[in-house]
């Protein structure tokens, strides 16, 4: 068999051809495509991006309203029991300090609160086993 040597052979062409006017048409096509990308896509994309950012921010803020409200109301409303517990266990305030802080209005309020009927008073006195002790004191 004859040994094939590339350099001894006449130059082998690739054999690839193109349609007629291919390169003219190609130039026109690509220039049109590039001009379109320049004039249309860039501004639209930018504007769209700004609007989407705004919309996303608005949605996030509106979604946060109930959460913020919840935390605010929770932190402001300390119930009476918590306050009482705090004062009795966590602070040095004793009943004398409290009495010092009372003004005339408070005393009036207290008086009206403890304005007991005589019957009730009698009931309490009769049912209380330490009555004698209280009287002597």
């Amino acid at each position, binding site marked *: *068999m*004859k*040994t*094939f*040597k*590339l350099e001894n052979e006449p130059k*082998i*062409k*690739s*054999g*690839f*051809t*193109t*349609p007629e006017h*291919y*390169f003219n048409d*190609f*130039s026109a*096509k*690509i*220039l049109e*495509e*590039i*001009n379109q*990308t320049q004039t249309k896509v860039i501004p639209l994309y930018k504007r769209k991006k700004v609007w989407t950012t705004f919309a996303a921010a608005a949605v996030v803020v509106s979604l946060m309203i109930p959460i913020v409200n919840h935390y605010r109301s929770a932190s402001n409303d300390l119930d009476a029991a918590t306050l009482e517990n705090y004062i009795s266990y966590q602070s040095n305030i004793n009943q004398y300090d409290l009495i010092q802080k009372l003004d005339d209005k408070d005393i009036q309020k207290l008086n009206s609160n403890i304005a007991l009927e005589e019957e009730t008073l009698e009931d309490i006195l009769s049912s209380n086993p330490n009555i004698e002790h209280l009287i002597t004191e």
Partner: protein
Amino acid sequence: MIDEKEFIQQLLDPKTQNSAFQKLLSDYQKPLYSHIRNIVLSHDDADDVLQNTFVKVFQHLKNFKGESKLFSWMYRIATNEALTFLNQKAKLNGITAEDLQNKTIDNLKADVYFDGDEIQIKLQKAIVTLPEKQQLVFKMKYFEELKYEEIAEILGTSVGALKASYHHAVKKIELYVTSN
């Protein structure tokens, strides 16, 4: 001939952009088409890849630092686009890139944009058996008749390594054609 830097400025300036890009197209579309066609083999695929190449060139022109020549930068983009295209097409068909090329070569005889006979087909079949780098070097040297220095700049290798690659490629091709 105008300075390359000046030409790139013209390509970036909106006022001169159109005419500069027209010049770029008329200078490079034919050699880049040949380069791409030699890799992807079919005209339709070469047309797609050439379009992608010029669009990419246009998009990335503002990032072109001028570290290499415009010529080699564009050839590099074309090479990458063509190889990526081949690999994606092969993957889509569930076959290897080599099988895909063999299939395309078998179809070349029926291709209206192929004017070759047995020897061209045999040569293409021989080239497919080579490693990717040797295929590229052989096609760029033998078909496109680029200088070693130009190929070295495009592929980022030394001239010495390219000469060795080409030499190996020729030997393997001669062996294939002799025995087939």
